[in-house]
């Protein structure tokens, strides 16, 4: 008898019908009776102290219900990793820092009131460049940093500086390595801030009840982290806060931390127990909320004559903006993977998160990967060129593989990097036809990467058997479009032996869902996949136990299939799951057992921190992901325009639970990476104000920017021994290679190197003009 299996199949998105009919409810779509609208009152200066605040004109606006400022709330510090923020501040640290908020019957009235608040500032000197902020003794943005609370391993601050975190990796003897090297290459990269570009802006609805309970509906990637942040910032215990995530219209890391929810919840306290809605306009979203961090980085690599990398020294200055948010985690994790996926005996890394007076940088799809890959993969090509080595063979010679220890001393249990490299090389085949036009130069480039995930974030999932035999999965994974609801349903269907159409996956409500920190670090398939399996097995164990009593057949002879419990020796003997959904009833009317719920948790039992002095640790990451990509480009030497004509990607995913969704991640990441490589850049003026906070001055890729050909290969040669069905992750690695591969392809086409993103036509033309020396820094 054949049994339908779902894992490994291209199951369509379980929530897709609502998406294509416009029925999916995003946070901005929520309208509740009596709802008010709130807008933020934001700082006009990059660094200042508020001296006086006059609400008199603002309060006269018709329809205004409440205006609050920092004066109305106790100074409760909160933050994602470092408690360096308050809901409303007297000491604004960037243009747009929330000072207060206004709530009114209509959005227009709230906006008008906010605009009429008169604020007198004492303007303080500000600092925007991370390298300057790193050295600065005069401008200290957080003078009380040493009093902040923060997570161990993420808050290695230096008192009296602008440095909330410093990650060190010390492996081998890097200076000895350089002394022994036959060739040393040094480079400096600069990466500007970019936007997440989620098409849905931040939005939430907050409501207090008279009994002191707060309900927040928000477009968030992390309902439990948001609840924790609300609890700290507002001073409410967690049992009085309910967070429900709505559909999330794109996250990419930008909806990981609590932000507007905290301010909306704060003003909702003063709004007569009415619901308060806050929706950011595109302009406000981009002027004042989040970016990917800017980076200035220095690389020095030593290589022996035979093409072996023997030493690498890396210094990274990550621009956190005004608050640490996720940036201390970026400095840590991006730091410890910044030497690249290579077997290097001598490594020295200093990675710093640095406060500046810019809008806040936060997590961004694969933080640090795309940026550092952009540097170390260009260096790889320079070295290969120097030795006359084939870039593919040179990478294969140095690539990490299973069983090896990486930079932090973690032994790799699954690593298909070499397979990825060989596959993209094979699939890319011979270079596609050169353009006939003389002004168009064609080139090809390769880039490879590795990516960490997390280890300290347990997940819990709950599976309920409904009375009719159908299943409800209370997942603790937030599906932000990557497809975790579908993947979890596939996994659960196979574990339970039931049709996927009998399973509904419901979103997180922090009151009753199991704990799951957030959708981050390409971790959901691995972590929630495992906890979903365990919850499924727990439920299956119970129904087999009850089934055994009903069928009078020993459990050892029972199995599940197609929503039925049946006898292995006599498959005609079976009962549907529904028969045991409430336990077992005997003939007299007594009952054994009860409603069936399965519970599963997943933790990384052998996870470990990193030593603060050496950066060494047995297992800071539950698993590692690898990828390789080849890009082909055409560069117009007259205009400096780059057109990517082809991407070939291979991603080491362990096992593709849903190959089509995996390819969707690879394709989406490739084009997001293309945007950052070619044209995306947040422009900030000398006063710290964003100059291009709209979608025509900040260009994101359209269908017209896509390559003619995109080949995306999920690589399944190295299933992870701890992964659900061997699966690892894919979302973030998908974005890591494009910028580096494109830069290498441009160098191949033109013979010039550009170490600053994005590769704009101006930089190309400039580099062509100064073609000698070859490397443009």
């Amino acid at each position: 008898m054949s049994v339908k299996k779902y894992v490994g199949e291209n199951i369509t998105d379980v929530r897709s019908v609502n998406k294509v009919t416009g029925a999916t409810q995003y946070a901005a779509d929520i309208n509740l009776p009596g709802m008010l609208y709130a807008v933020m009152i934001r700082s006009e200066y990059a660094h200042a102290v508020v001296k006086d605040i006059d609400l008199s004109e603002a309060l006269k606006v018709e329809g205004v219900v409440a205006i609050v400022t920092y004066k109305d709330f106790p100074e409760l510090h909160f933050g994602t990793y470092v408690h360096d923020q308050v809901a409303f501040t007297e000491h604004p640290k960037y243009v747009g820092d929330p000072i207060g908020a206004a709530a009114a019957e209509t959005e227009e009235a709230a906006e008008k009131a906010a605009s009429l608040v008169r604020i007198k500032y004492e303007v303080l000197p500000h600092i925007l460049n991370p390298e300057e902020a790193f050295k600065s003794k005069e401008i200290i943005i957080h003078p009380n940093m040493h009093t902040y609370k923060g997570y161990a391993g993420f808050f290695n601050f230096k008192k009296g500086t602008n440095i909330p975190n410093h990650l060190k990796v010390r492996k081998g003897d890097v200076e000895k390595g350089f002394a022994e090297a036959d060739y040393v290459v040094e480079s400096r990269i600069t990466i500007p801030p970019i936007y997440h570009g989620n098409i849905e802006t931040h939005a939430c609805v907050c409501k207090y009840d008279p009994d002191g309970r707060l309900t927040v509906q928000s477009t968030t990637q992390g309902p439990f982290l948001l609840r924790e942040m609300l609890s700290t910032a507002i001073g409410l215990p967690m049992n009085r806060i309910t967070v429900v995530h709505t559909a999330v219209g794109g996250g990419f890391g930008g909806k990981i931390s609590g932000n507007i929810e905290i301010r909306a919840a704060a003003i909702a306290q003063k709004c007569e127990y009415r619901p308060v809605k806050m929706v950011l306009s595109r302009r406000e979203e981009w002027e004042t909320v989040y970016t990917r961090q800017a980076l200035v980085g220095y690389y020095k690599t030593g290589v022996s004559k035979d093409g072996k990398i023997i030493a690498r020294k890396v210094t990274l200055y990550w621009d956190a903006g005004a608050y640490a948010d996720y940036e201390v985690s970026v400095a840590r994790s991006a730091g410890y993977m910044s030497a690249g996926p290579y077997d290097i005996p001598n490594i020295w890394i200093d990675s710093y998160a640095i406060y500046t007076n810019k809008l806040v940088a936060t997590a961004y799809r694969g933080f640090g990967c795309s940026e550092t890959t952009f540097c170390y993969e260009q260096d790889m090509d320079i070295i290969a060129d120097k030795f006359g080595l084939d870039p593919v063979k040179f990478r294969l010679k140095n690539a990490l593989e299973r069983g090896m220890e990486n930079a932090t001393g973690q032994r790799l249990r699954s690593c298909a990097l070499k397979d990825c490299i060989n596959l993209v090389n094979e699939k890319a085949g011979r270079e596609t036809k050169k353009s006939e036009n003389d002004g168009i130069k064609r080139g090809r480039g390769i880039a490879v990467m590795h990516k960490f995930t997390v280890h300290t974030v347990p997940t819990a999932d709950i599976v309920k058997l409904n009375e009719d035999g159908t299943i409800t999965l209370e997942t603790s994974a937030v599906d932000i479009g990557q497809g975790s609801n579908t993947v979890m349903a596939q996994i659960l269907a196979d574990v339970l032996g039931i049709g996927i159409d009998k399973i509904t996956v419901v979103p997180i409500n922090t009151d009753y869902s199991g704990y799951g920190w957030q959708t981050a670090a390409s971790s959901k398939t691995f972590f929630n996949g495992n906890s979903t399996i365990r919850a499924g097995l727990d439920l299956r164990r119970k129904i087999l136990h009850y089934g055994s009593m009903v069928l009078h057949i020993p459990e050892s002879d029972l199995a599940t299939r197609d929503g039925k419990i049946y006898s292995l020796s006599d498959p005609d003997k079976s009962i549907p799951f529904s028969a045991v959904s409430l336990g077992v009833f005997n003939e007299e009317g007594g009952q054994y057992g009860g409603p069936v719920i399965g519970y599963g948790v997943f933790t990384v039992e052998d996870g470990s921190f990193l030593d603060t002095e050496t950066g060494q640790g047995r297992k800071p990451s539950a698993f590692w992901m690898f990828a390789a990509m080849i890009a082909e480009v055409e560069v117009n030497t007259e205009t400096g325009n780059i057109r990517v004509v082809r991407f070939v990607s291979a991603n080491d995913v362990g096992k593709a639970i849903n190959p089509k969704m995996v390819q969707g991640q690879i394709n989406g990441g490739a084009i997001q990476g293309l945007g950052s490589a070619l044209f995306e850049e947040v422009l900030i003026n000398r006063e710290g104000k964003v100059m291009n906070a709209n979608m025509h001055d900040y260009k994101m890729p359209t269908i017209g920017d896509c390559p003619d050909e995109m080949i995306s290969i999920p690589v399944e040669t190295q299933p992870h021994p701890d992964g659900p069905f061997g699966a690892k992750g894919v979302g973030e690695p998908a974005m890591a290679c494009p910028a580096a591969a494109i830069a290498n392809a441009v160098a191949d086409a033109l013979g010039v190197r550009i170490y600053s993103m994005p590769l704009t036509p101006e930089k190309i033309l400039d580099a062509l003009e100064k073609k000698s020396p070859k490397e443009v820094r």
Partner: protein
Amino acid sequence: MKRDIKCTINGRQRTFYADPCASVLDVLRDVLHLMGTKEGCGTGDCGACTIIWNGKAVNSCLLLANRMENAEIWTIEGLMKDGELHPIQQAFIEAGATQCGFCNPGFIMRIKAMLEENPDPTDEEITQGLVGNICRCTGYKAIRDAVKIAVKKQRR
């Protein structure tokens, strides 16, 4: 000043009281409670608010409500017929073009207008037709695939 505006929306005659200077997007969402049309930018750059207005795909955030007078308007809510998804909607699902879903209504309305004018577009025509809509999730490959699947479905 608000006034009565009369038009056909999704095949039904509607009269509503609205500010003729408001955007069509705001009227659809706030007055008519048709929440399927999304706002991504409010400046005509992202296409999330695309609707079909008198046979043309337009960014509803840039159209003023007075242009709704006597117009024939289709929004995403009008595509399902007798409980059946429209072929373009089916194609989006089959192609895996639904990730976060936020841009989907706008894309689907744009594609509907495009295919009504040109039932069998070339690759280049698809690119030209969809260049005004932004999707941050899919890398557009699945959306292009969806157009091709929809073309086949509609030909049947």
